[in-house]
């Protein structure tokens, strides 16, 4: 049966289409600018997936296109097609090959996940407090210095963000960092980020939290360590006692390891 199909030509068309789609899609910066050590790794995973997806999509399009071109009934043709009920080898192939592809994707993703969540020794901790509809930040290593609506972090140093919520669920997302984590009442969640490009960014709430959800933003500044130290030293306020109380009451979701394998 397959002997009657121009398999080589169809494969060539699939590869040509894959190359064409990839050539158009890969140069585009889909996720926007990257500003953390995790960003290029996640972007590269995305690029690999774009090529694989382009292949799968092209394969489906070529198979569909050829069928519609070749096997379309002539006007007035009332006859039936050939009584082919299946092909065991082909069916095994399209079970096994996709399995291999997705398992490769899973393995690759797992490696990237472990990589971007690996903890370094000189990391610093920042407390993130969220409430309807505002963000504030505490620096436990700096005498619980406290900042409302503006987050500063030093360049090239890993930060462990400890997320706290004072009311409903919020979610911490800086698109340029590619990192997101929910702030959940009752528990402390953690996100690990190593910012590697100085600049001003926006912290966006991505979990629906009420009528002010779309306005729940904060300014993020990544700056050289010396400038950061200066900024923290200039903070007048300290974290309110009520907030420190909630930190104590909350349970830590991942007390041991954050890596995908740890627990």
């Amino acid at each position: 049966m397959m002997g009657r199909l121009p398999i080589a030509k169809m494969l060539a068309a699939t590869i040509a289409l894959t190359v064409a789609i990839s050539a158009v899609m890969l140069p585009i910066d889909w996720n926007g600018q990257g500003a953390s050590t995790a960003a290029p790794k996640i972007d590269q995973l995305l690029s690999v997936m774009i090529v694989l997806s382009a292949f799968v999509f092209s394969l489906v399009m070529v198979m569909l296109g050829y069928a519609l071109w070749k096997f379309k009934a002539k006007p007035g043709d009332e006859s039936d097609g050939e009584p082919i009920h299946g092909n065991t080898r082909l069916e095994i192939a399209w079970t096994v090959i996709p399995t291999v592809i997705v398992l490769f994707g899973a393995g690759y993703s797992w490696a990237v996940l472990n990589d971007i969540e690996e903890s370094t020794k000189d990391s610093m901790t920042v407390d993130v407090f969220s409430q309807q509809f505002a963000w504030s930040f505490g620096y436990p290593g700096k005498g619980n210095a406290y900042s409302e609506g503006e987050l500063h972090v030093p360049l090239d140093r890993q930060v462990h963000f400890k997320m706290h919520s004072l009311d409903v669920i919020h979610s911490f997302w800086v698109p340029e960092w590619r990192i997101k984590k929910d702030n959940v009442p009752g528990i402390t969640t953690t996100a690990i980020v190593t910012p590697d490009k100085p600049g001003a960014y926006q912290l966006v709430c991505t979990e629906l939290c009420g009528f002010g959800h779309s306005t729940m933003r904060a300014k993020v500044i990544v700056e050289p360590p010396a400038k950061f130290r200066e900024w923290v030293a200039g903070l007048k306020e300290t974290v309110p006692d009520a907030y420190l109380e909630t930190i104590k009451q909350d349970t830590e979701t991942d007390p041991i390891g954050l890596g995908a394998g740890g627990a």
Partner: protein
Amino acid sequence: MVAAIKQPGWIRGALGAALGAALGFALVIVLREISGLPTFQTEQTGYPHVVVPLVTGPLGFLLGFGCFDYWLRWAVGQPTIPEDHSQHGAHSWKDYFRFNTDHKVIGIQYVVTTFFFFFVGGLMAMLIRAELAQPGTQIVDAATYNSLFSTHAVLMIFVFVIPVFAGLANYVLPLMIGAPDMAFPRLNALSFWMLPIAGLLFIGSFLAPGGAFDTGWTGYAPLSTGAPLGQSFFNLGVQFAGASSIATALNFLVTIITMRAPGMTFWRMPLLVWANLSTSLLVVAATPFIAGVQFMVLFDRALGTQFFEPLGGGDVVSYQHIFWFYSHPAVYIMMLPGFGIISEVISTHARKPIFGYRLMALALIGIVVLSYSVWAHHMFVAGMFSWLRVPMMITTLLIAVPTGIKIFSWLGTLYFGKIHTYSTAMLFALAFIVTFTIGGISGVMLGMVPIDIHVSDTYFIVAHIHFVLFGGSVFTIFAGVYHWFPKMTGRMYDEKLGRVHFWGTLFGTWLTFIPMHWVGMDGMPRRVADYATQFGEWNLLISFGAFILGACQLVFLYNMVVSWRYGPRAEANPWRAKTIEWQVSSPPPVFNFDEIPRVVGGPYEFGVPGARHAIMAGDSAEAPAPAPAQTTTVASP
């Protein structure tokens, strides 16, 4: 008048609703008086004098309308009214507004009702896109916006996509397996009548103080446990929709297992029957979880339980675990029946047996099994234990395998066939393969934890779910409605208008939902009433696409309504299909078959010389034996 009150029907139903609501109201007031509490509790999460009547009113309506008459008589030992089948069939449009136990009438009741909610939900989508066409606030304020997208999603999911499949299958499935009706016709009718109640509760929440529920269709605690009264309407609406869904699934299971015609072995069942068997297995086991979790939210709100209140020892993340343990399988509840429809349409219009029929059936079962083990992929950033992410990622990606099998087998079915594209149903089926592939691809990307961490809760998600739910499920629904329209109405629809609807819908779907991927990856979160100005132009384009999409649905509506009334009479089998529903008249006789058909072969034996699927009463007696050599799998390429 007295007779009207005694008879089941609308008058007694309205009376029942009023009495039920009054009883519930009185119960609350009396209990509060006895307990020395203030008569009316109007904290926004409370309002017991509204919440309780929302339960007792609909139950009163169902009682009055006659949904329980037979069972109640039986239970109290009164002589039951013998089933004289007067409730079967529909002779005028009025018969569709009665408690009717005919699966064909119920099927049409379902489809029409659910499409009503489709258009209401669609209008909400138009409002949403009008607001989002430009940055800033133009049409609705942020709170109303949140209500709109929440209600849009809930209407589309709970009272359109899930039940419209139940409606189509209700009509077609008993005919397909050669059964005179569903196994439990009275339960079937009850299932249907719970559905409009659910829809009206969802829409009615706009009348509640504080506005309609505004916490998304996901209703995450603790936002939902503290939300205004409208949230309780949602909690209760889900109970009615869920009960309807569970009862129908049980009905399908029993019907499929026990009522197949002689000779209809499992391996001779049409794939639509397989698909509904699989779906029903998901519904009966998964739906109780969402019913349970919405009760927990309601109890947190109204009774002060603290399931999701951390200060009371509750656990916020557990809401999401229970919710998604239903709501991920629900995605397949909204897709598997569509897979069944596509198999019927493609095989018929390509004049070819389904390629790899058994693997197609097994892939459905594979999806059922896997779909119970992937729910936490909705929670990769939710703060659950992080070790759970990797196994859930692996199962999530693996579910692409049985889904891929289905795509490739449909494509294989086209090869060496005689593909006819004159039917709008076939156009939708072919387009479904393309759009669903794109939705599947973005689904695989979302399954990968590092990518998901970035795009979770952004417009990328909105794009993905609309590609699989609109480009996927809704395309299959259109395919199914066009395919069985002649059977259900006895009339042909207009293919020209069908083509306008098809091309407009395809173009609108792509124009609306493809750019959503881009703005999501680039930083636009979802569920926002306003957004950064940098996304303005893309959003204008998206809204433009959405309006095209919306306008095309009016063509569909016009085509369906006018063709149902004035379309040319349909033959019994206009598509020359092999399955049993096409071997009876259009529309079928009240009791489907004069004599139960005898099944002698597979359902898709196109081009097999002498092969038949079923022998109907009145067919010539000699049953040609199917030629075994040609029905087996071709051994080698």
